[in-house]
């Protein structure tokens, strides 16, 4: 978001010597990942507009895959080019940071999105309608569910290929989010990836009522929270007189600089800082789904089309935590002693709350939603460490977690009955007997969630807790350990259900997926096991990416 700074400078310059206007300077290479994705998104829209319907699916799929792959390659290139460490710097006139954490998170997001595209594109699971394959998105989202319009759309074999560009836009926003280096960029990025998600949530082919409800809930609450975030931004701006991270950080650490006497007189400007910070934090905590801002998570996860849920659960968390880290480490280190205890509290109630409520869930998607809340708590424990170890452990955890999540939701798409996906837990009884392989894979994911050794979940959990313990948060670790014991209970419940209960007569069948979903799941399992058995390489990656540029 160059313009703020540029215009600002324009104004100051104007006040001084009139004359030459310096053109804003943009480092296109450093920003290439984002630019590629957004560009591809735009092209995707054009495809929707210009390419005949029957070709759209493949061209969109191809485009998205290529774009994401290219973006990922760009990230790798940048990292290899040392932008993650030595050459890390602020780009786009202070709007975007190009540094280790940013690149690592962007890389993760891109990989996750790549896999998500696979699940988006899956067209073998639903029985073919009128002879043409269908994916998990509504044929004609605008049409009334079950209405004549929809019938016609289905008959005509329409498919919502718009999901791909929409997805790409969301990804674009997510790429900027953790890299945003001023509050405005943060806000814009937030909206850029939220709005597409709202739409995606509404597109489910089956159970459209739930889908639409999820969308409206997500939208209203999301907008509500972003309003708070924006107000927080306003207050911080008022406090520091700038929205640039560096600027605010400087003011925070050096204490108040000269400020409008009226302002100073009326309210202690620290209040501006504290309230502002709290509100911005709230905005981000909403996105990571931390208690008490988690209410949307179960409903949205349940209602949204499962591929979207998987994408959200994985990518959104990564992006949001990235932004949270940057905010806390770059902007607010000066007031660490104010926010750390608060975050302690949030982390604890998030871990416990998520785990406890999950015990009595009866829908697999809601269960995973609550588990994701609990995991948010674990990650927060790492965030609080406020050490380089903390950063890298969080980065690692995010990487590990996102793959497990994607895989798990991908498996959920496979278990179906007449009404589409059979997400009611009781229907999963005896799955292990029906199709041991799928059940076993899902069990692996569950064990990873539970943090059983030899899975990525354990490595991540260990890394995070280790960082926390070293930063003196020993009791936080104990709480974390206890809540993961509680959490273990419901993961095990699912395993018991799948393996030790007799299959029901009218139980769901396991659809045979196309290579797309299979690849997605396979990647998930591989990542889970590799990160569990030999995490060192990735820990190193995260470790080197542990430093924020200021």
């Amino acid at each position, binding site marked *: *978001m160059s*313009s*703020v700074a540029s*215009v*600002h400078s324009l*104004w*100051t310059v104007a006040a001084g010597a009139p004359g030459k206007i310096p053109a804003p300077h943009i480092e296109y290479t450093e920003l290439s990942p984002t630019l590629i994705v957004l560009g591809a998104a735009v092209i995707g829209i054009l495809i929707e507009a210009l390419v005949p319907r029957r070709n759209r699916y493949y061209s969109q799929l191809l485009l998205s895959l290529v774009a994401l792959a290219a973006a990922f390659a760009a990230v790798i290139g940048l990292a290899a080019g040392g932008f993650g460490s030595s050459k890390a710097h602020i780009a786009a006139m202070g709007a975007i940071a190009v540094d280790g954490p940013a690149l690592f998170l962007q890389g993760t997001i891109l990989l996750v999105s790549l896999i998500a595209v696979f699940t988006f594109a899956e067209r073998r699971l639903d029985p073919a309608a009128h002879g043409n394959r269908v994916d998990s998105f509504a044929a004609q*989202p*605008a049409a*009334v*569910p079950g209405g004549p319009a929809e019938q016609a759309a289905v008959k005509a074999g329409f498919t919502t290929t718009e999901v791909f560009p929409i997805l790409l836009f969301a990804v674009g926003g997510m790429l900027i989010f953790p890299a945003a280096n001023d509050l*405005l960029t943060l*806000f*814009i990025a937030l*909206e850029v990836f939220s*709005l597409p998600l*709202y*739409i995606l949530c*509404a597109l489910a082919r089956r159970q*459209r*009522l*739930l889908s*639409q*409800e*999820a*969308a*409206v*809930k997500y*939208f*209203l609450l999301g*907008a*509500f929270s972003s*309003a*708070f975030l*924006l*107000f927080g*931004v*306003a*207050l911080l*701006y*008022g406090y520091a*007189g*700038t*929205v640039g991270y560096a600027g605010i950080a400087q003011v925070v650490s050096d204490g108040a600089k000269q*400020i*409008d006497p*009226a*302002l100073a007189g*009326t*309210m202690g400007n620290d209040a501006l800082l504290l309230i502002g910070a709290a509100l911005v934090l709230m905005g981000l905590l909403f996105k990571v789904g931390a208690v008490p801002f988690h209410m949307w998570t*179960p*409903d949205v996860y*349940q*209602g949204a089309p499962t591929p979207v849920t998987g994408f959200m659960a994985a990518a959104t968390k990564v992006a949001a935590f990235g932004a949270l880290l940057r905010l806390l480490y770059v902007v607010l280190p000066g007031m660490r002693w104010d926010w750390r205890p608060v975050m302690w509290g949030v982390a604890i109630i998030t871990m416990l709350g998520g785990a406890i409520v999950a015990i009595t869930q009866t829908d697999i998607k809601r269960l995973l939603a609550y588990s994701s809340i609990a995991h948010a708590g674990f990650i927060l424990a790492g965030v609080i460490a406020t050490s380089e170890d903390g950063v890298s452990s969080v980065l690692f955890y995010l990487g590990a977690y996102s793959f497990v999540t994607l895989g798990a939701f991908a498996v959920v798409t496979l278990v179906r009955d007449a009404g589409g996906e059979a997400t009611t837990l009781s229907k999963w009884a005896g799955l292990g007997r029906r199709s041991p392989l799928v059940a076993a894979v899902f069990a692996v994911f569950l064990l990873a969630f539970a943090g059983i050794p030899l899975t990525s979940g354990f490595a991540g959990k260990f890394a995070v807790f280790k960082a926390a313990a070293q930063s003196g948060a020993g009791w936080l670790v104990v709480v974390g350990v206890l809540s993961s014991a509680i959490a273990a209970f419901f993961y095990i419940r699912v395993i018991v259900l799948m393996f030790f209960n007799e299959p029901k007569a009218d139980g769901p069948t396991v659809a045979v997926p196309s290579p797309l979903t299979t690849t997605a799941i396979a990647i998930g399992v591989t990542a889970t096991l590799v990160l569990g058995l030999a995490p060192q390489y990735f820990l190193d990656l995260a470790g080197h990416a542990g430093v924020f540029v200021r």
Partner: protein
Amino acid sequence: MNPVNYLYLAALLFTIGAAGVLIRRNAIVVFMCIELMLNACNLAFVTFSRMHGNLDGQIIAFFTMVVAAAEVVVGLAIIVSIFRTRHTASVDDASLMKL
């Protein structure tokens, strides 16, 4: 006139908006309340911008408007589609998923 008053006004508007979100049932109205909150933020931005004597706040206000507009697009789309399905815009009716 003391610019701080504008801040108070902004805070007031923001609170009204938030209250509205909590109180009103009609999705459209709820949505409007959110817009109101955003505008309150804008007011705050502009005021601060004036106090600090730099333009950032005012620029941000423009961005906020754009975002708000975008939100309207998406939001209305969702709300309308729900309305067409359920023939009601009450947010309380959309409560199939709970517990």
